[in-house]
């Protein structure tokens, strides 16, 4: 169980940093937004991992269960909110990227900078 927990956490770190790298290093605006999505998904994994109780079940309380053990509902609630925040940010970012393409004819960051410098 210990190893599995560490593995979850390490996967969180790897996903987080993969997304972060895409945001920082990629030049294409859409690719940057894909990176943002990865970056946010990693955080979802962090929260949901901490909500797990071994041997527990989903926090749906049904009568007649003997000595029930439930996983923690609160991180799940927070992440439901965070997922919706994530898609909202992505949608807005895509809207801006589309407008940039219309105005500049490209979604590559360095080309936009060159056009502005002229």
């Amino acid at each position, binding site marked *: 169980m210990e190893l599995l927990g560490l593995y979850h956490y390490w996967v969180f770190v790897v996903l987080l940093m993969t997304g972060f790298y895409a945001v920082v*290093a990629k030049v294409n605006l859409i690719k940057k937004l894909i990176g943002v999505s990865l970056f946010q998904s990693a955080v979802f994994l962090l929260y949901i991992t901490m909500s797990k109780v071994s041997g527990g079940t989903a926090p749906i309380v049904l009568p007649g269960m003997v000595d029930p053990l439930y*996983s923690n509902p609160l991180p799940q609630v927070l992440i439901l909110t965070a997922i919706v925040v994530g*898609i909202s940010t992505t949608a807005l970012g895509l809207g801006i990227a589309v407008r940039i393409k219309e105005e500049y004819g490209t979604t590559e960051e360095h080309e936009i900078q060159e056009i502005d410098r002229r």
Partner: protein
Amino acid sequence: MTAVFSIFLLTLLVITALGIVRTRNLFVAVMLLGIFSLLIAINFFILDAADVALTEAAVGAGISTVLFLGALALTSERERLGTRHRWLSLAVVASATLVVLYATFDKPRFGDPNAPVHQHVAPWYLEKTPEYIDIPNVVTAVLGSFRGYDTLGEVFVVFTAGIGVLFLLSARRHGAAHRPPGERDPSGIGLREHVIPRVVGRLLVPFILLFGLYVQFHGEYGPGGGFQAGALIAAAFILYALVEGEDRTLAAVPQSWLNALMVGGALLYGAVGLAGIALGSNFLDYSVLAANPVAGQQLGIILIEAGVGMTVTGTLLSIFHAFAARDRA
């Protein structure tokens, strides 16, 4: 057994993520991102987070993929230059990685029921939900009532994104607006020419709608609620738009209805909150909505979930139509 499956899934996640970053074809990256969302949703399910899994599958794999495809159809499918400042970026990322890994030490054991995170507030929710609200799904109880103010905020985040995209994409184009012919890519939007997807799609739409309504009204008992339902219903209409065309979807559900849904849902939620003040209690206190506090809580949750479902459906569809309309123009 589950542990092996978990490790397998997590490894797949990492591989998918690396694939997403490496590929220069954005269409491939978006498809992989959809797969990534499905994989992570399965993972959430294994970790007992059924509600989150359902949401991630509907929003991450469904809506988000469609929006990305819509945007790709309006921009371009290939990255021209891959990366810039590669070594600098790698250095920043590597140092951040070390910092995060440092937190691994002293972390509570995975799944430990005695970890601090499972003490204090969380057991109170599990214990008191049957008494105060009396619905089986504790996640819905926390989301709708105990932390209902967060959920109100969340509805307004979605609403803000909706009016934001409508605002951005209602701007007049000038400058380098013209698109070279031939670069236009119909793959993102429109399956009208293909028989099999069209037939299957048409068959699926009513079932998705039905499932969406089920998820909306069953959220107190099982996994589900307004967000998931809204995303599913929006997905059904988007599928209809893909197989039958934008215009026919807009004829069935015109933009003015969508605006009304968007605004109406947000206002419904707010009105339920204000009713709490009007009836002599605090904002968002549902127990005063009915003679019996528990019945009041349940009524309140049903109403605000309906508000959430309305706003999410209206907003997601508006955003989709805004992208699609820009494509036709």
